């Protein structure tokens, strides 16, 4: 399952969706907004998303995990403003065996970061910045950053 939402994420929801009585383990990755980045204090992030494409790309990752590993995968991503300490992304993979669950979960989050059209705007002590891969670009003051519908 996939979920793209402005509401707080519940990792247990991802777990419930992937676990069956046949599975002996799950691996969960949770990304959380931290209080610093690139040496700057950060007070929060705003995630901008190209929603229809992001959902499609997330669904493809879930499908690829099923095809390549035969495993169930759930991906939740929050967008809009997210404060420090709150979860921005949850990836959960269930498996009978742990090695595959680790491999698949790691592949899923790596692929999400590369290919799912979501961007973070960082509210830092010294300004507001768009994070575009390795670059951070000053953002327009007061610029609205709503999700594209």
């Amino acid at each position, binding site marked *: 399952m996939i979920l793209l939402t402005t509401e707080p994420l519940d990792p247990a929801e991802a777990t419930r969706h992937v676990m069956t009585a046949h599975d002996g383990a799950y691996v969960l990755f949770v990304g959380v907004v931290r209080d610093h980045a690139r040496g700057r204090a950060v007070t929060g992030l705003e995630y901008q998303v190209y929603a229809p494409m992001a959902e499609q790309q997330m669904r493809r990752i879930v499908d690829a995990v099923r095809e390549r590993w035969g495993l169930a995968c759930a991906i939740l991503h929050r967008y809009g403003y997210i404060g420090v300490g709150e979860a921005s992304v949850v990836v959960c993979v269930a498996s009978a065996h742990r090695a595959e669950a680790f491999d698949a979960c790691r592949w899923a989050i790596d692929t999400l*970061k590369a290919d799912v059209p979501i961007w973070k705007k960082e509210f830092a002590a010294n300004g507001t910045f768009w994070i575009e891969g390795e670059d951070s670009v000053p953002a*327009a003051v007061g610029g609205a950053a709503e999700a594209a519908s």
Partner: protein
Amino acid sequence: MTVRVLLFGHYRDAAPPEAEGGAFALPLPDGATVADAARALAERDGRFADLLARTRVAVRAEFAAPDTRLAEGDELAFLPPMSGG
């Protein structure tokens, strides 16, 4: 023809005044490609000069190439390096 351009990240801050949520209409000659659209944007506003060098593109929410031909009503998104997660 007219396509619907979608901008993200710092490029959205440079979107024209009529844009809503980073989206606006761009008139193009029939048969125009993604690269033609990027050139048209760069001619309007110098801040888009590096648009194609710094973004991947999607047409109708699928990754596309600079030489992808556009059709009437296509949604053309310029996607800076992503930073989700």
